[in-house]
């Protein structure tokens, strides 16, 4: 078949803090293939990719590019050697606009100065070539996550990457966007690009890749041609057991209404993001909200979590008007919130796991009487959470920022799915999380529903919505275009038509 374009031999990586992220990894990448890397959270995938990209230096081992042994000392060198990488966490400068972000480091010059016109032209050309729609002049802080992902991909392509590393690019994309991306990836391989692809969604891996390398606890479990492996086998190699992500739900008895929106329209001067939204969420119900990113989901959650959006219409939460609540009173009444952006709102990265686990309910008597905090109660609470969520760490005093992303997510979920929570707003609860962890989180959500909590589930992952929700709203352009009572009875095709605005219920 094709020849090896990139080869790693015996790569070991020990981080400064003593964590061994990669152990004697061998990896061979062939030209023009789509090579998937799979493994649990913290298995060492990103680390390995960063080594290929020159961002991290291996502690030991050899690196061959086009058959020649190479020292990949810097990102700059990697880019020059035709390697591009789209990182798992966005690598964008928020205050700069899209064009500036894409051209960062390769700014075209006119004399000594930047040539903004030429830059824009270059970006436009590439975006058109790959059929990406971009908002060129908006600061990155104002564009949606899906858009950010596209910006990242263009960033790599425009640098002429022949080997393109994509670290969980689909985690934030809708099924349609993912399909679009896959078309692009196929086209790229035809144009002579080689692709390294990381995902926790095994269906995607199976669909797109030519070969698969499985990594477990820093070591390779081997590389296999994709057609030789069933999804079940992959998950077995990865996690050591079968994971299906399909659930048999019991029929639930719905109870009192905890959250109700009546004719809510948002009031911003940059166009109304939400139009006439009405729904009611009852105890024992998981209400899914689906839609292509940027169609009002974030605004909805921002209003509910009191982050400044103002609105017309009425919102009642725990039977009272939302406006009469402070965040604190909402919290104390039993509101849980899993934020989409776990790093900025979900955790305090420099603090310990235990401190992160109690931030919403440290006032409670179980964590100490009056003004004092009861250390022991907190620690045993934390140990319990670590155990039941299988958070892999050194202990309850592990600094959260040093966990792998999947495990950070578990900390957030662990805190927000606490037994006191009556109403949970779960925004992308399993984003970036490995199969095993996703299954665990899904079970937690179902358990909460079982005990009578109400859950508003916002997700870009259609499988998640379909499997978990009792009822599902689809948002398009700030409006509810569909309201499915048994989401499982509707096909993915049908969902897609509503989400893309091709259809609208009642028309």
């Amino acid at each position, binding site marked *: 078949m094709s020849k090896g374009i990139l080869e790693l031999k015996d790569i070991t990586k*020990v981080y400064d803090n003593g964590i061994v992220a990669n152990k004697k990894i061998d990896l061979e990448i062939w030209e023009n293939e789509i090579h998937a890397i799979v493994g649990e959270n913290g298995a060492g995938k990103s680390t390995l990719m960063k080594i290929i990209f020159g961002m991290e230096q291996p502690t030991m081992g050899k690196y061959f590019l086009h058959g020649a042994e190479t020292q990949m000392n810097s990102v700059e060198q990697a880019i020059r050697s035709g390697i591009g990488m789209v990182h798992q966490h966005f690598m964008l400068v928020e205050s700069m606009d899209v064009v500036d972000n894409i051209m960062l480091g390769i700014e075209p010059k006119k004399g000594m100065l930047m040539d903004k016109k030429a830059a824009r032209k270059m970006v436009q050309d590439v975006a058109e070539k790959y059929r990406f729609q971009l908002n060129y002049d908006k600061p990155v802080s104002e564009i949606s996550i899906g858009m950010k992902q596209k910006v990242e991909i263009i960033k790599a392509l425009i640098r002429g990457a022949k080997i393109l590393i994509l670290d969980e690019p689909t985690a934030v994309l809708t099924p349609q966007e993912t399909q679009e991306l896959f078309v692009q990836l196929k086209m790229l391989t035809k144009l002579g690009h080689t692709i390294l692809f990381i995902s926790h969604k095994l269906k995607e891996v199976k669909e797109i890749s030519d070969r698969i390398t499985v990594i477990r606890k820093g070591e390779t479990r081997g590389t296999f041609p994709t057609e030789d492996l069933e999804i079940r086998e992959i998950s077995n190699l990865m996690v050591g057991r079968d994971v299906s992500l399909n659930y048999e739900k019991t029929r639930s008895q719905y109870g009192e209404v905890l959250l109700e929106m009546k004719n809510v329209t948002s009031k911003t001067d940059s166009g109304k993001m939400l139009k006439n939204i009405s729904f009611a969420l009852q105890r024992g119900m998981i209400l899914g909200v689906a839609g292509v990113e940027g169609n009002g989901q974030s605004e909805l959650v921002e209003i509910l979590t009191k982050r400044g959006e103002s609105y017309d219409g009425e919102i009642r939460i725990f039977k009272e008007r939302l406006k009469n609540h402070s965040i604190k009173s909402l919290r104390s009444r039993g509101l849980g919130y899993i934020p989409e952006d776990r790093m900025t709102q979900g955790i305090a990265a420099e603090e310990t796991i235990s401190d992160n686990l109690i931030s919403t309910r440290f006032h409670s008597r179980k964590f100490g009487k009056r003004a004092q905090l009861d250390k022991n109660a907190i620690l045993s609470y934390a140990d319990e959470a670590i155990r039941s969520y299988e958070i892999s760490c050194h202990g309850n005093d592990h600094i959260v920022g040093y966990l792998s992303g999947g495990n950070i997510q578990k900390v957030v979920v662990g805190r927000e799915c606490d037994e006191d929570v009556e109403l949970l707003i779960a925004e992308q609860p399993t984003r970036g999380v490995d199969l095993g962890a996703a299954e665990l989180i899904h079970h937690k959500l179902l358990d909460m529903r079982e005990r009578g909590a109400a859950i508003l589930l916002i997700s870009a992952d259609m499988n998640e919505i379909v499997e978990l929700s009792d009822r599902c709203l689809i948002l398009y352009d700030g409006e509810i275009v569909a309201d499915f009572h048994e989401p499982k009875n509707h096909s993915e095709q049908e969902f897609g038509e509503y989400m893309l605005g091709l259809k609208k219920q009642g028309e």
Partner: protein
Amino acid sequence: MRTLAAVGIALGVGFVIILLLSDNPMESIFNFIVGPLTKFRYMGNVIETAIPLIFSGLAVSLLFQTKLFNMGTEGIFYIGGLIAAIAGITLTLPAGIHPVVAILASAVFGALVMGIVGYFKAKWDVSELVLSLMFNSILYGVGLYILNYYFREESTVVLKSVPIKETALLNDILPGTKVHSGILLAVVAVFVCDWFLNKSKLGYEIRMTGANKSFAEYSGINTKRAIILVSMIAGFIGGIGGAVEVIGMYDAFKWVSLPGLGFDGALIAMLAKNKPKNVIFSAFFLAYIRIGADLMSRLTDIPAEMVGIMQGLIILFISGRMFLQFYRNRLILKEAEVK
């Protein structure tokens, strides 16, 4: 270990300079390193010097812990010292109560002033750095005016206040030194702050606000209140520090320029990584090298400026996290291989 090496290198650099200057380099170095231990009185000097440093270090670490880059402790020390002196001059109270009143007056004022900075920061996001630097000058100017126009000792060359009443002065607790009861207060303050920050619910709110403000907000913590509160506490401690220094070490208010102790606080806080308990060690460390350097310049022929030069070098080397990292990395690697 690393600290020793850092001190060693700074000394090495200093040593070269000293070799060029001194007729008796060994004696100079000796005075610097072990001088403070050679006499009981010198050890007392170390403690005396450490007392205000503990207070200012503590105040600044609370602020830095909450990511408030507020340098206002300097001004609080100045005005707090003056207020304590005024209380000591104007009030007539019994010996046990007088200092307490003086210290409290200063502390409350400090809390109010810093509270204003905190309020502006929390409410309107006014830069606390600018505000606190400006407040330093303003408090200094106003303090000087009050001193000059209302409490000045007449018929003397230098500007100082009329004497503070005996009853208001802190008594010395170590015979043969000037170590005063302020040291006890300092140690208590450290433990109270440590408890407050790590074991109390309010302290937790403050820590989380500092660690990630938007996270704290969405967890239901009132971050504005936390910012104002921590500013006030820092002001309170700064006020105590200024008062204790003046009624502990002086018999009249004699500061005609900002004492520099607040800025030292930033130094201490950074050395202590903003941890209240570490503040004691950092303060003693800085006090020790200061006294050592003083002794060196006093007892030998090294110019006084060596004090500042050596201090600067030692602080730079000690705080270099990556200093000798190479060596540490090898250790880590070995350990990892063993596993």
